[in-house]
Each structure stands twice: as structure tokens, then as C-alpha cells.
């Protein structure tokens, strides 16, 4: 592949036309053919370009460490993951924590709790904030991934990434949001501050749940591509674009409560455009991203 970063970088904008997309897909296929996958290159690719949907699950599994870099071990490792899930699932049935009628996302939560040693003594669903985040992410992931066992591993690894790798960065995101909003539209920021809305934006939905339950899955997965490959900062730019997109509406609202309520239930019709613009904005402010967090 010709390695002209500038040229490749620009191709993001031609993706819509479909022509550059084909070339990107080919270069990803070359990366995926290696006997030993180069995680760093896969990260860089996902940061720069949208993942073709047919390879998304595979790339996510490799980036999240569910699959090892060596192709040769994929079968063995996946068998272990499958059996582990089945063992835990069976055990939860024996102690009557789950039954046939238990919703799939709750099954995922219980399996995760048992794996992480946090299974409560009583199966009556306690709604800890932590569980709520898990359930929201699980619900969105379930829409994206067909296979239950793949889906479970993706949810648990994604949640673990948020709790470990991004543990310290996520609390900083509201501050960054204010900073970038002041650069993009200081008038809107002033209005939000005047309504005392800046302290009451849906940060939990945006930054803890990573927009699960806020954006439809087709848009959401393009955001998660960036999060999984190493940048939780993208979340800030999605939030900025949401604010900019609905500026007129927000300027007409004058209480923090109403603003929060609106932002928690944004219209779902042009979310794809919001995500595209957010990615452009992110590239604009952070340059061609490599492995920045």
C-alpha cells in the first residue's frame, strides 16, 4: 500500500462516495492477513478510518484482547471463552439466579457479576449506578452483535476498558467539553452557563454509557470504533456536535432541567451526520490521531 498519510487521512472525507472506502477496506484486509496481527497498526487504522461493518466485530475482539494477535490461536482461545461462558451460565441457572424468562441483558449482567466476584447475595435486581451503565451498554451491544457469547465478551471487555484504562480520563471529559465548546461556539456556552445547565448536562449518558441509549446503534458503533481503539476523547466531540446541532432548540430553552431532558432524548433522524461531524472536529483539534487517549 502506498503510505501517504496525508492522502489516507483525506480519504475519510471521500468515504461517502464509496471509492476511497474500497481502498481502505483492502488495506485493512492486508493487515488482517498477517499471521500475527499488528495491534498498533489496527488501532491506528480504526482511529483514522471507519471500520467496514463486515470486519468490525473481529477488529473489536482483537483490540479488546478477547482474541490474541496470533491467528493460529484464535480457535483455541475462542473455545475457552465459549466454555467459560457456558459454565458460568449453567451455574447461574443452578442457583436460580437466571431462568428461561430472564432478559438477555440481565443474563449478561449476572455472568459479568459472577466473573468479577460482585454477584449480590439476592437475585432481586438492585439498581446500582454501575449496573445501569452495564445494562445500557449491553443493550446497545446486543443490537450490534448477533452471537450471544461474542456479545458477552465484547460487553465485558468494553466495560472493563472504561473502568480501567479510561478510569482517570472519563471524569475529565466535562471540563474538556466546556473548553472545546468555548472554542466552537462561545455564545452557546454562555447561554448554557446562564441557565446553570453546564453542571446538569447528561454526562452519565454521554461519558459513562458512551452514548448507549442516546444514539442509534448504526451511529453509535462508529463512535465506539474510536473508543475501543484508544480514544475516549471522541466522546467529547460527539457531545459538542450534539450541542451545536441543536443550538436553536437549546437557545430557546431556559432551564437546566428542560435542557437536560431534551438532550437525554435527542431526535434520532440525523445522528449519522452528527457522528461524522464529530469525527471531523476531533481530527481538527487533535490532529491525525495515533494512540492518544
Amino acid at each position: 500500500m502506498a503510505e501517504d498519510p496525508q492522502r489516507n487521512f483525506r480519504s475519510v472525507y471521500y468515504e461517502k462516495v464509496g471509492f476511497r472506502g474500497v481502498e481502505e477496506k483492502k488495506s485493512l484486509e492486508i493487515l488482517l492477513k498477517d499471521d500475527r496481527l499488528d495491534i498498533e497498526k489496527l488501532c491506528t487504522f480504526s482511529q483514522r478510518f471507519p471500520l467496514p461493518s463486515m470486519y468490525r466485530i473481529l477488529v473489536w475482539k482483537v483490540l479488546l484482547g478477547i482474541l490474541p494477535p496470533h491467528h493460529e490461536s484464535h480457535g483455541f482461545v475462542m473455545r475457552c471463552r465459549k466454555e467459560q461462558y457456558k459454565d458460568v451460565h449453567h451455574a447461574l441457572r443452578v442457583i436460580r439466579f437466571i431462568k428461561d424468562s430472564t432478559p438477555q441483558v440481565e443474563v449478561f449482567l449476572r455472568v459479568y457479576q459472577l466473573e468479577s466476584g460482585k454477584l449480590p447475595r439476592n437475585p432481586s435486581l438492585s439498581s446500582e449506578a454501575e449496573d445501569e451503565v452495564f445494562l445500557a451498554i449491553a443493550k446497545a451491544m446486543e443490537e450490534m452483535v448477533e452471537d450471544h457469547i461474542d456479545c458477552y465478551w465484547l460487553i465485558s471487555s468494553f466495560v472493563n476498558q472504561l473502568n480501567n484504562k479510561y478510569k482517570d480520563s472519563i471524569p475529565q471529559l466535562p471540563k474538556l467539553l466546556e473548553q472545546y465548546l468555548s472554542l466552537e461556539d462561545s455564545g452557546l456556552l454562555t447561554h448554557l452557563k446562564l441557565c446553570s445547565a453546564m453542571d446538569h448536562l447528561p454526562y452519565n449518558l454521554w461519558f459513562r454509557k458512551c452514548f448507549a441509549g442516546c444514539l442509534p446503534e448504526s451511529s453509535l458503533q462508529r463512535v465506539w470504533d474510536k473508543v475501543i481503539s484508544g480514544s475516549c476523547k471522541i466522546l467529547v466531540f460527539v457531545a459538542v456536535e450534539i450541542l451545536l446541532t441543536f443550538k436553536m432548540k437549546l437557545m430557546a430553552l431556559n432551564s437546566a432541567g428542560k435542557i437536560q431532558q431534551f438532550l437525554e432524548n435527542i431526535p434520532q433522524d440525523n445522528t449519522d451526520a452528527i457522528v461524522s461531524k464529530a469525527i471531523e472536529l476531533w481530527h481538527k483539534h487533535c490532529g491525525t490521531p495515533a494512540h492518544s487517549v
Partner: protein
Amino acid sequence: YLEDVKIQASFQLQAAEGWYKMQKNITQLFEVEILSLHGQVQNERLLNNREENKVEQAE
């Protein structure tokens, strides 16, 4: 190449160990469940005895 084999082996071992360790968690979970069920059986028996006594007194 040798390094590759080592890394590959360690990934495999990790995956297998993760799975196996879960089995240990399950054993512990079942242990707790058994203790709690024993407690329940005992409670029900106590209740039973009381009711039986009542029946005897009433008769």
C-alpha cells in the same frame, strides 16, 4: 520466531486459566448456596415442629 511461540503459548495459557479459575468461583458460589439451603431446610423443620405441637394441643 521463538519469542512468537512463547507469546502465543502465554496467550493460550491465559485464556485457559481464565476459564479454569471461573470454575473455582463457581465452586465457592455453590458452597455458599448449599449452606444457605441447609439453613432454609432447618427453618422449615422448626416451623413444622411448632405447627405439629399446635395440632397436638388442639386435638
